[in-house]
């Protein structure tokens, strides 16, 4: 194994740059090092001006999503030696506006998320000192969709989101489904009006790249397609049986 690997890193300093440039750094090639370790080496030893986000370095906080050799990836779980002899290209996550270097703004997602009402909605009275019963089978119905770490790799992979910025997007819809399918939730009809819209599930054309990019196996594409069927049946039902449908 060679001693070093070249990392080609996007730089963007809004105070001075009109558009991003690429800067190259030679980084030690160690078999345990993730791309994130390479970035930290650059920041600590070579160039303190490089900005990027990271925290847990174990794939659970969702901070360190970037584009590595053209693919959206968590840099803490992507290993340098898989790209040897290199070079490795590290760019900010696609489809998001770039604030600085490898840091993008995810404000659009954070603005959209509350609109799908991603919380448990109850219409009955809640009994305080007893838990809602939920069997392991009922938990399995939505468990997969509850694994989203909000890393935004799915938005980076989605060509629809690239072309239509109003699209709610894979993670937001998957989170809505997480609650729709939770046996304790009673709010599915409240979410329908936002999800069954042109900027909701109907914008999705099932490219499927979101699920391919997801590091946690959430399968947002599956969540969306499933909801299309739900939305279609509900709309049809309310058409055919307008009053008593619900």
């Amino acid at each position, binding site marked *: 194994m060679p001693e070093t690997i070249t990392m080609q890193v996007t730089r*963007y300093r*809004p105070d001075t740059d009109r558009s991003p440039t690429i800067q190259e750094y030679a980084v030690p090639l160690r078999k345990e090092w993730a791309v994130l370790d390479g970035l930290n080496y650059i920041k600590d030893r070579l160039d303190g001006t490089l900005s990027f986000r990271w925290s847990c370095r174990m794939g659970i906080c969702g901070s360190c999503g970037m584009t590595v050799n*053209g693919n959206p990836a968590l840099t803490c779980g992507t290993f340098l030696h898989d790209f040897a002899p290199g070079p490795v290209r590290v760019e900010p996550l696609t489809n998001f506006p770039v604030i600085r270097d490898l840091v993008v703004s995810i404000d659009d997602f954070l603005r959209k998320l509350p609109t799908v009402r991603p919380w448990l909605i109850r219409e009955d009275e809640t009994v305080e000192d007893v838990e809602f019963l939920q069997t392991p*089978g009922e938990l399995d119905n939505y468990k997969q969709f509850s694994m989203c770490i909000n890393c935004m790799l799915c938005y980076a992979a989605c060509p629809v989101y690239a072309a239509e910025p109003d699209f709610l997007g894979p993670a937001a819809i998957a989170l809505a489904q997480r609650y729709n399918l939770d046996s304790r939730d009673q709010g599915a009809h409240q979410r329908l009006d936002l999800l069954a819209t042109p900027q909701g599930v109907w914008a999705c054309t099932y490219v499927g*790249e979101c699920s391919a990019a997801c590091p946690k196996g959430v399968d947002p594409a599956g969540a969306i*397609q*499933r909801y299309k*069927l739900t939305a279609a049946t509900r709309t049809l039902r309310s058409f055919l049986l307008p009053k008593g449908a619900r």
Partner: protein
Amino acid sequence: MSTELTDLRLYRPPIRRTWWLHRRSYLMFVLREVSCVFVAWAVVFLLLMINAVHAGEDAYQRFLAFSGNPWVLVLNIVALAFVLLHAITWFNLAPKAIVLTARGRRLAPRAVAAAHFGAWLVATVVVGWIVLGGR
């Protein structure tokens, strides 16, 4: 309050027109989407054929001559390939939308897809039997 995004001098990368050529998966996706055009053509062709049969022997012979045209042959071969692509990708994606549970266990996605292919096979056999001379 927080600084407005517009005040931050954010960089928004432009989208290239050829975005769909840059990944194999995007290319397959676009081909899949384009396949509906050929599905539409297959329906039109079928309607033309039914109309020709209905209009009598002469009309039918004209239709056969038309179909024998090299460009129509090529078109129909290409259309067949796209219709097959359309059907196969559609059936493979169906389990994502159709999630059925029986007695607390989820029906395997493969079973849902298999049911689609099975129905296709049955339909093909029935149509084939009718067209190829079953009595």
